[in-house]
């Protein structure tokens, strides 16, 4: 079972994500800010990370840069959840490897679609490696 870590301080978002991701067959862990997220990753790296940007203690942006620094070999992708309205994050996110956007308000379809696409591609890549 693929493991997804959701880092978000808004319980209504994590609840919805947890419910829909659970239904889609993923194991879901949550953390309520970047710091807690980083600790959870240190203990056990997930297959996919979902991160909000605006959070207390440690923002999603800080979390991403901390990951770049501490885990330069990181293979799991980061899905950054950002508002459709603001484009200001488009710049710094370019410096982060293996990063995608999920636009808020979140679409569960778009999200599961993005995950399916990612894991399909990952399977193809693995398969190619075995040849």
């Amino acid at each position: 079972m693929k493991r997804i870590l959701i880092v978000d301080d808004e319980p209504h978002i994590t609840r919805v994500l947890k419910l829909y991701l659970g239904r889609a067959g993923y194991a879901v862990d949550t953390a309520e800010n970047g710091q807690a997220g980083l600790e959870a990753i240190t203990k056990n790296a997930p297959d996919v990370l979902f991160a909000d940007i605006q959070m207390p203690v440690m923002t999603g942006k800080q979390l991403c840069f901390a990951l770049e620094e501490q885990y330069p070999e990181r293979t799991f992708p980061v899905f950054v959840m950002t508002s459709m309205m603001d484009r200001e994050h488009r710049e710094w996110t370019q410096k982060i490897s293996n990063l995608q956007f999920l636009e808020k308000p979140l679409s569960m379809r778009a999200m599961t679609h993005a995950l399916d696409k990612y894991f399909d591609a990952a399977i193809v890549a693995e398969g190619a490696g075995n040849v």
Partner: protein
Amino acid sequence: MSDEIFGEIDFPRYQRWLNRSAGSEVALMVFNKAGVTLWGEDTAQAAKIGLAIVAAGTEAAGLHRHDVDAGKTALYQSLGAANDGQLGWLAVVADHFAEHQTPVLIDQLADAMEDIVAGIADERRDKNDLVMMTDELGQRYEELHLVYAMDEHIKRSEGENHKIFQSLLQSAAEHLNVDVVAFVQPARDVCQYATSLSQEIHNLDLVLVEMRGDLYRFLQVSAETINLNAADDPRRAYIFTDMPYKILACPVVTDKKIESMIVLLNHQHKPDFTNGDRKLAEVLANQLSGMSNTYLLMQSMAEFNRQMARTLIEAVEAKDPYTRGHSERVHYLSMEIGRAMGLPADDLENLHWGSLLHDVGKIGIPDAVLCKPSRLTKDEYTFIKVHPERSYDILRHIRHLDKAVLGARHHQEMYDGTGYPHGLKGEHIPLHGRIIAVPDTYDSITSSRAYRAGRSHEVAMAEIERVSGSQLDPVIVDVFKKIVATEPAWLDLFKIRRDKA
């Protein structure tokens, strides 16, 4: 399913609760409706008690008693019922229960179990509500996502309305992951669609015909959303016969009348359309129909504007039949120049109206002057010179044209400052005035007047060349020369006379 609803219940808490009430350790047992242990020690004794409870088949609420062997007694109570029967059971067993427990203690245990059952029921209900609300919230996010995405799309797209409409359909097809999205409004002959094909649809034309025909008629009668998933749905005898696609068709109701519909179409291999799809389709339908109505309204306003302009021009031409077609020709050539100069869209719009209506002020010139076949006296010529300012006076009442009127007002200015009405010079003459002046000069030479036949293209171009820099802006004359050098089709269209080379 029924077991899941107990999944998140905090049973250890109820165990502590029971221990406190009873004053001693009393093991709590939770069974599902089949008597299988859900929580508590899964011992052989527990399994036996579970089966015994189910076998007893007690339906009533309240506390029940089951004597277990070796002098042990189980007290049990239902955890409530749902549509599909019992949800499960709560039980306790006390060693040597029957022998030394006082009736007071039994009452205490009974009360505690009553409370625990009620507590579990409340918690279960809350958790259940929470899941339902979370589910609902997820669907609302989905709708909001679609609406925001459409809104962003509209804000970011430039260009004409129908292109935005098309790209909205396209993004909807991709977002909803459906093979075809169509917006159908047969009364206005609208059937726009976008595809995000999972597989080829070889008969898409026929599918569209079916949509705007039988499907639309069916929807008008049924007046509700049609969700056609199964290939053997009996309704396929009337609609989409021999077309085994999954169809979700959603009417748009305005003033209690169905005026359009949104159709989503998928190949059979895709999942069935759900209630969630239906809500999204309805959101989409309302957005698109709002846009479509706005678009049609804009079209009819634009039509109205054209007709009003046409009417004004007819009024001028009624006074002077010899100028028939002059406004249209000057307009046509001005737009050619404007486009060749790369003017932005809103500027072209202003040039459009300014050039079309540049001579409207001639309405104010007495017929005796306007249509005089011989040379004008100085006073008569003064009357003529009034007309650009008169054009301005007439058109300034239309706020939409406030930038367009400059072209009309200043089309008789001359580049060297000797023109009228204001004697502006060079760059001080509004650009549209300088543009309109060139085709105005050209057309006045090449078209026939009361007192002379129209002269040739070559004569006109020679004259324009001669006055370039004095009467006309040389930059615009150059643009015009480049245009005519390509022998454009309008030379024939306007029946311009040519000199044989």
